[in-house]
Each structure stands twice: as C-alpha cells, then as structure tokens.
C-alpha cells in the first residue's frame, strides 16, 4: 500500500526543535567533567539562540505543521509565549549557577532538564491539538518532577518531588479523561474540530460530553496553575524544591498552563461560555481570597511566595471572563511581568541561600537593607511590584488587567480583585519592613562574602526590567496585543 507522505513544515516547529536540540547538546556536553563549569553558560548561549529563532519568526503568521493535521501551529501567540518561557529560563539559569554549585547539583542534567521543560512549555503554547498539548504537558511535568527532586540529599526536595509527582499524575488523569470525553463528542482531538462541533447543531448528549470534558480539563489545568481548590500542593512543593527550581515552577509552568487556557477557552470553548464563565469567576475569586488571606500569616518566605503566586493566578484568571482581545492581551502582559517579579523574588532567596544556611523565614531578612543594600533594593522593588504599586510593572499589569475586566463589564469582579490586592500589600510590605526596619540578628543566617555575580546580574536585570516596564510599558503592551491578534 502506498501512502502519500504528508507535506510537513519543519519551519513551523523550529523553536521547539531548537530547544530540544539545545537541551540534548547540554545533556551530552554535561557528561564531560572538564566542561562542568561551562555548562550553564552553554545553556545560556543555546537559550539565546532559541530566542533569536523565535524572534525571527514573529509576524510570519500562522503556519501549521503539516497539511494532514495541524497538531501545532507557529503563530505570534505561541512565539511570544515561547520567548517569555525562554526569558524565564535564562533568569533561572543565572540564579541557579552559584546555588547549584554550592549544593553540587550543577550537573549537565540539571540544565538540560530545564531546557527540556522549556521545550515542553513551548509545545503546549503552540499546540492546536489535545494530543500535542498533553505530550507537551508531560514533557514539562516529567522534567519538573526530576528538577524538584534534584537535591537528592535534601529530604524536603525529595518530598516535594514525590508530592508533585503523585498529584501531578493524578491531575494528568483528569486531563486525559477530559480529552477522552471531548474526543468522544467531536471525533477528533483537534481544537478546530472540537470548536466546529461546538459551533454546529449538537444533541444534548454531545453537549454533556463536551461540558464534562471541559470540566475535567479545567481540573487538570487548574492544578498546574494552582487554582483553588487544586492548589494544596503549591506551598509544600515550593518549599521543598531547590529555590531556583521553585522560581521556575512558579513562573514558567504556570505561564504555560495559562497560555493553553487562553487558547482553549478563547478559541475552542466560547460556545460554552454560559457554563464556564460563572464557574471560573467563582474559582478565580476563591483563588484570590485564599491566596491573599493565607499569605497574611506566613512567616516562611517560600510559603509566603507560594500563596502570593496562588493569588496572582487568581488575578490572571479574571480577564478570561472578559472574552476580548484586551482581556487575553492583559493576561499575556501580566504573565510577562509576573515572570520577572516572581523570578526576582525567588532569585533573591536563591542568591542569599546559595551558601550557608538557607534563607527561609522573614527573620532571616532582618537588617538586609544595611547588610546587602543592592539585594535588598531589588527585593523591595519586586515586592512593591507584586503589590502593584506604581511606577513598577506590577502596577501597569494590574491596571491593564483590571481595566480590561471593567471594560468587559465585570465591575464587581474588579472590585473584589482590587480589594484583595489591597490586602496583599500587607504581607509584601512586611518583607520590606523586615529588611529595612528591623535590626539584624547577631549572626545572620547567610554566609558572609561576595554574592554570586551571575545571580546579581539576573536580579538587577529583572528589577530594572520591572521599573522600565512600569515607566515605558508601551512596547511590551503592543507585543502582548500582537500576540493575541493571531488567535482565532
């Protein structure tokens, strides 16, 4: 039997190919002990190359992977998302260097898995088919399970990995079941086909299947973005994971799931809006409330940031309701800013706890303002930005997000969001208070001596970016808008 081979367009998946190859190169080079010191820099270089590839493809319009089935598409949305992931990975590598060295986890596999994870995210972002989405998700998840447990000698790291693995597998089960139902209803795994089924005449039974499938997908994706009530793993895992990995986990993997959510809800399931809008709004409000309220009483910094990241996921869920280009663009913009902010916050902890005792609690920050002025300044900028105080990027992101929401007619949701974001100020400021307004302990927990140059570079870069985007947000806003323009 002769089969016509499909015409495939490798160009359409170039960023993913480059990322996977980059990871593999890092993996192989990492086997040689003599290159050990150079691995992170090689990773940076290769990430930069992937970034350049993605940038070059911007604006070249939607190109599907093959003529037989689309599976993945190259469009601005996926490319911008990929760029965000790459930027997050670059910062993660930079803050990892000294941390990994001090804990002797600076192996090639660490950086290779990081880049594999990015490739998984990128696949998720570009997917137009449940199949590739799920595979991308697993590429990401498996890399993360291993990265979280990378500090084998640390019980917390092992525990975190096991928890994330068990619950992650559980969540994957929900996603798979949901996909099965969607496939059953529409006879295809392609987003477009599912959307077609939704658009046309459909019996009650089919409708029910579609709804059930969507519900189960939401459970699984909700787990990845730590939406209440699927958030319980977040603080434990962040606390246990190596700090740079926690940073990556709280930004990249969350961002990837959000990107998928935008694509799914925006272009596949608009037909079921009547059903999912009330659901998501309730869950978003719950997420915001739980995240912010519980963060108020945290004294462990990683747990505090974990609850803060839960709250931010809640904010980002809100504009989904607005169902507008503005709404989606505001999520993309928020994701970009959030990546810089959260990597900055975790980065400070990573740089501080690279050597010596880990910087774990608020008390450990006491007197940081006089001990490490630059680091404290970065942390302060990041905290103000997370709290949404102008002129930081966090303010711009929140403002854009809430104005999109108000524009969509959801004033009451905006009110609730703003109210809780007011509450959040309390715990962010507490960090600043501890750094600047509490005398240092006799013997600070962290080791004396120079802080890692690379880590500080990353932190200063993110702090500067946060300030710069706060003052000159236009370019980035336009990028976010351009990204969502290509969505159907």
């Amino acid at each position: 039997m002769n089969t016509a081979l499909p015409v495939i367009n490798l160009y359409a998946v170039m960023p993913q190919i480059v990322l996977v190859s980059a990871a593999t190169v890092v993996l192989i080079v990492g086997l040689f002990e003599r290159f050990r010191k150079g691995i992170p820099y090689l990773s940076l270089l290769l990430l930069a190359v992937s970034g350049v590839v993605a940038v070059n493809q911007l604006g070249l319009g939607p190109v599907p992977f093959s003529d037989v089935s689309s599976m993945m598409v190259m469009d601005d949305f996926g490319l911008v998302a990929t760029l965000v992931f790459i930027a997050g990975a670059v910062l993660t590598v930079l803050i990892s260097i000294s941390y990994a060295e001090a804990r002797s986890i600076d192996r090639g596999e660490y950086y290779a898995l990081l880049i594999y994870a990015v490739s998984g995210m990128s696949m998720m972002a570009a997917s137009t088919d449940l199949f590739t989405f799920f595979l991308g998700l697993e590429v990401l998840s498996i890399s993360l399970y291993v990265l979280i447990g990378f500090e084998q000698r640390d019980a917390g790291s092992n525990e975190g990995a096991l928890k994330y693995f068990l619950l992650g597998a559980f969540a994957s089960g929900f996603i798979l079941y949901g996909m099965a139902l969607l496939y059953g209803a529409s006879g295809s795994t392609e987003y477009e086909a599912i959307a077609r089924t939704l658009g046309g005449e459909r019996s009650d039974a089919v409708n029910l299947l579609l709804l059930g499938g969507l519900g189960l997908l939401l459970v699984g994706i909700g787990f990845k973005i730590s939406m209440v009530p699927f958030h319980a793993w977040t603080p434990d895992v962040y606390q246990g994971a190596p700090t740079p990995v926690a940073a990556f986990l709280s930004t990249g993997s969350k961002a990837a799931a959000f990107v998928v959510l935008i694509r799914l809800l925006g272009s596949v399931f608009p037909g079921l809006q009547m059903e999912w809008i009330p659901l998501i709004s309730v869950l978003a409000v719950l997420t915001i409330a739980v995240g912010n309220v519980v963060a108020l009483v945290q004294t462990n910094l990683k747990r505090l940031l974990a609850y803060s990241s839960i709250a931010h996921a809640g904010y980002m869920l809100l504009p989904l309701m607005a169902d507008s280009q503005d709404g989606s663009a505001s999520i993309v913009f928020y994701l970009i800013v959030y990546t810089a902010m959260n990597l900055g916050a975790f980065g400070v902890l990573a740089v501080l706890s690279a050597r010596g005792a880990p910087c774990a609690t608020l008390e450990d920050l006491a007197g940081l303002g006089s001990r490490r002025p630059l680091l404290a300044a970065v942390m302060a900028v990041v905290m103000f930005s997370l709290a949404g105080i102008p002129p930081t990027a966090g303010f711009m992101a929140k403002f854009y997000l809430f104005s999109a929401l108000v524009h969509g007619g959801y004033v009451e949701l905006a009110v609730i969001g703003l109210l809780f974001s007011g509450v959040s100020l309390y715990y962010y400021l507490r960090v600043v208070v501890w750094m600047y307004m509490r005398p240092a302990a006799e013997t600070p927990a962290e080791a004396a001596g120079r802080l890692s140059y690379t880590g500080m570079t990353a932190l200063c870069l993110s702090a500067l970016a946060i300030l710069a985007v706060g003052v000159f947000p236009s370019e980035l806003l336009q990028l976010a808008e351009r990204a969502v323009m290509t969505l159907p």
Partner: protein
Amino acid sequence: MNHMTESFSYVWLIPFLPLLGAFINVFVNRNPRVSGMIACATVAASFLLALGVFFQLIGLPDGERSVDVVVYSWITTGTFAVDVAFLVDPLSTVMMLVVTGVGLLIHVYSIGYMGKDACCVRYFSYLNLFMFAMLILVMGNNFLLMFVGWEGVGLCSYLLIGFWCERRSAANAGMKAFVVNRIGDFAFILGLLLIFLYAGSLTYADVFAADPAVLAPVITAITLLLFVGAMGKSAQVPLHVWLPDAMEGPTPVSALIHAATMVTAGVYMVARCHVLFAQSATAMTAVAVVGAVTAIFAAYIALTQYDIKRVLAYSTVSQLGYMFLACGVGYFTAGIFHLVTHAFFKALLFMGAGSVIHALEHALEKGRDPQDLRNMGGLRDLMPVTYKSMLLATLAIAGIAPFAGFFSKDLILLGAFVNAPALWLVGLATGAMTAFYMFRLLFMTFGGETRLSRDETEKVRESSRVMTIPLVLLAVLSTVGGFIGIPHVFAAGMDRFGGFLAPVFSGLPEAQVPSASVELTLMVLTLLLAAAGIWGAYTVYIRGNSIFDRLVPRALYTLSLEKFYVDEIYDTLIVGPVRKIARGCWRILDSAIIDGGLTLAALTVRSMGNAIRYTQTGVVQNYALIMVVGALVVFAYITGFLGP
C-alpha cells in the same frame, strides 16, 4: 497652541531634578555632608523653574493659561492611550510653587536637623524622591499619572515614617499609614476605572469635557470613590487614624509631608476634579459634611493632647477638614487658598516644634520625653527666634487678622455661611477651639514657669542658623501671605489669588456673595471667637485657673484625651477579626501540615512515632481528596447538576 507647548517644554525638569538628586544620593554620593547640598540644590532648581512657569503663565491671556506638555506616549493599546504629560495651568502652578517652595525651606532645615544622623544620605534621597512623586501628582495631565504620584508619595511617606528603624513603633506607624491609605487608594483606582469605562479616557481634558449625560449614571459613584481616596490621603474622619501616628517620623518630614504637601493632595484632587464634583450634589454634600465633621472632631481631640507633634497632627487633620468644607460648598478657590496659607504656617509650626524637640533632646535627662508639653515651659527667652516665629504662625492658624490664616479661613466660613449655615456654625466653633489649643501649645511650651530642671535649662540652646532662617522666612510668609487674596469688601480687585485661579474654576456657577455688612459682621464674629479661645488658653495655662476642670465633665475630657477610642474600635472590629480569619484559614490549610514536621525521612525511618506518619502519609492523600472534592463540584456544576 503648539508653540506654547514648546515654550513650556522644560517643565519635565521640575519633577525630574529631584529624582536626579535622589539617584545621585543613592548610587553615587557616599558623603553625608554633600547629600544635603545635592538635595537642596535640585529642589532649589525646581523651585526656580516653577517660578519661571509662573511668570510665563501670567504673561499669557486668561483663556490660554492651560497647556498640556506631552513628554512621551506612555500606554498605547487598542482601547486605551495615556501619555506621560504635564498640565501647566494656574492650579498646578500654585501647587508646584508651594511644593517646591516650602519643600526647599524644609530641605534646608533638614540639613540642620538631620545632618548628624548616620543615615542622612538615605534620608535625603527619600525626601527628594518624595518631591518627585508629589510633583508628578500635581503636574500630571491625566488620572493615571496622578495615581502614580499618589502612590509614590504614599510610599515615600511610609519609608520616611519608618525611617528610624530602631524604634519599633515607627515601623508600625509606617505600616499603618500605608494600609489605611491603601483603603483610600482602592476607592480611588476604582473611581479611575469607572471614569475610564464611561468617559473612555483618563486625560483630564477629555474627562472634564465629557458630556455630563454620559457620566450621569455613575457620576455620584465616581466622585464619592475619588473622595474616599482623598479622605485616605488627607486623613479625613474616619480614615484619619494614620496621621497622628505618622509623627513617629523625623520632624521635618512631618512638616513637609504630613502637614504642608502630601496630605493636601486630596484637596488638590477634589479641586482638580471640580467639574465632576459639581455634577453631583450628593458628592458635594458628602465632601462638605465630612470636612466639617473632621474639622471639629480633630480640633476637639487636639484640645487635650500632650505630645507637641500630636497636637499639630490633629490640628492638621482639622485644617484639612476646613479645606474640604470649602470645596464641598463650592468655594474651591478658598480651599486652595487655605491650602497655601496652611502650608506656610503649619510647616512653620512643625519646624518650630522640631527646633524645640531638637533642643530638648540634648537637654533633657534620660527618660524624659522631649515631645511632651508637660516637660516644657518658659522656653521663650531661651529660644527667642523659634518663639517669635511660632507666635506668628499660631496667630495665623488661629485666624487673627491680618495674618495669613485669617483671609483664607474667612473665605471658607463665608462660603459655608452662604451655602450651608449649619456647617458654618461647626466651622465657627472649630475656629474658637483652634485658637484655644494652639495657644495652649504655645503657652505650655514657651510661656509661664519652666518645668525643666536647672541643669536641663542650661543645656537648652537656640537652634543653628540653617534651621532658624527657614523659620524666619516662613514666619514672614505666614504673616503677609494672606495679602495675595484680600477680600472684595476691603479692596475691590485685590483678590489676586482668586483672580489667578479664576480661569481654572471658570465653569462653576457664580458664587453668591452676601452684602458687605453681613460679611463684615461674620468677620468680627470669627475674630471674637478666636479671641475668646486665646483668652481661655491664657486663663488656664498662664494664670493657672482651673475653671475648666470644674465646668467640663470628666467624660468629655477623657473622650478627647483618648481620641474617641477610634484606634481601639478599629482594632476590635476590623484588625482583630481579620487576623483571626487569616489564622483560622492558615491552621486548616497549612499549619497542621508543617507542624507535623513533614519530611520524607520520617516515612523511611520506620522507628518514627506513629504520630508523624499519621500526618505524613495523610498529606498527599488528603490533597488528592481535596482535589477530588473540587473536581466533583466543578463537574457537578458544569454538567448542570447544580448550575443552570
């Protein structure tokens, strides 16, 4: 119009220069002695530029005195465009002059007051940063830029209140200030979103020109929300609680931020949005009533306080109430006028108090509070310059003619009399109380017998020149500052201040003016009441007559001394329960898990006690259980078992 924009193109330097100063002090300068110079120089340059703007503006015809200067386009998206642009008009120019002028004097004073502090580089960079934010606030040509300044000044205020980090109370006060302000900011940004939603823009020119019919359904909501924002920033009842605590900061900061400039931002905002406020009678009434209530409420508390800075803080709250009263009755010019004169005399009062505290800090024995009025007395001859300048300021705030406060307060009371007689009575009573407590402060500090020991008295010195010269300059302004707005009754056409601001408020209905005889009668009445207040203070605190002790019921006195228990009420009603809820949530969701001492090690070490395994093995399974519950709810809802 274009060439005019160009001729004002330099205005961006006015806020930028202090920012530059802050940058130099943070990143370049390490020398504490130079830091003050840098800070002062940049503010002085800004002041000169503001003067330039002023003279350029009065050279223009009335109709053209409003220029938008676009620096760059800030946000441009599909639905939404905002520029970083400054509005140069009489109102913003007045604010620029006050902020940079008074700010400059306080910067100079700070060199004397803070120069020996170990962290004075940090201090001056914060102060400069504050100037930047405040100037952005008053100069922006759109609400978003105003909000940036609004939050910026709040941030600087918070940093400066908590400046002395060894004092725990300072950090707490800073926190409180920021959190209370945040309530106001929440309302403010909500107002902005509503404006954007209905007017489709955030630029003043577009919003104020918007068709009232478009805004009509939400105008009351918008203006009330904006006003709540103003209440937070300008410490109006019931959001006033942060301002007295803010006195934990260095005294020049109290003078600059918590008296002369930042706290008046709310008044500026209401005046700037007068077009919107005028469209809602409800909002105007709310502004007037809140202003009047705050005025008398804070004045009443000020009657019995013993901390010199707290008296002044409550006095500030009370005077801000006056300004809102003026705006609420439609006398926006009067509100801004009082803002200006108040900036003069209140900055002076704080700096005078600072001078006294500075002197007593070195003189008093350990354990004696240099801010407590009961530890002062008889300082008149020891600190003559401070005494004389504070006397002038006290006369000004008491509203004695012809000092600055007289003119502005008189205009406010006139407006209240015409539009809201009941509020006028409140304002009148407040005036008498103001005179009483201010002279009480003056007499207890400088008059009568000294309560210092002989050793202590010998150590009291008048402050250095760098501190007294700003005092003298402000004393001059407090004395003659009122002449820029001489009422019509005395000399027609001499109300230069009103004339200058007229183009800004031209859209408002013509204010009713009572006959000259009524106006004069009112003035006399005000003066008589102020005199009565002064006489009362003299009787009690100089002559030592205990007449009030016998006349006033104890309860009324306690209520004032304990500030109406507002803090305690908030603690019980709001702070306590919120904390409890948060802890409750945390306990349920979190602490059982960490307190269980969870490590995987516990699982592998078989000999571990049963208790630890109990929580440990329970955890992941419990999490999964929570997820299933969630999934069940989602599923049930989405498939229509619960929902539609």
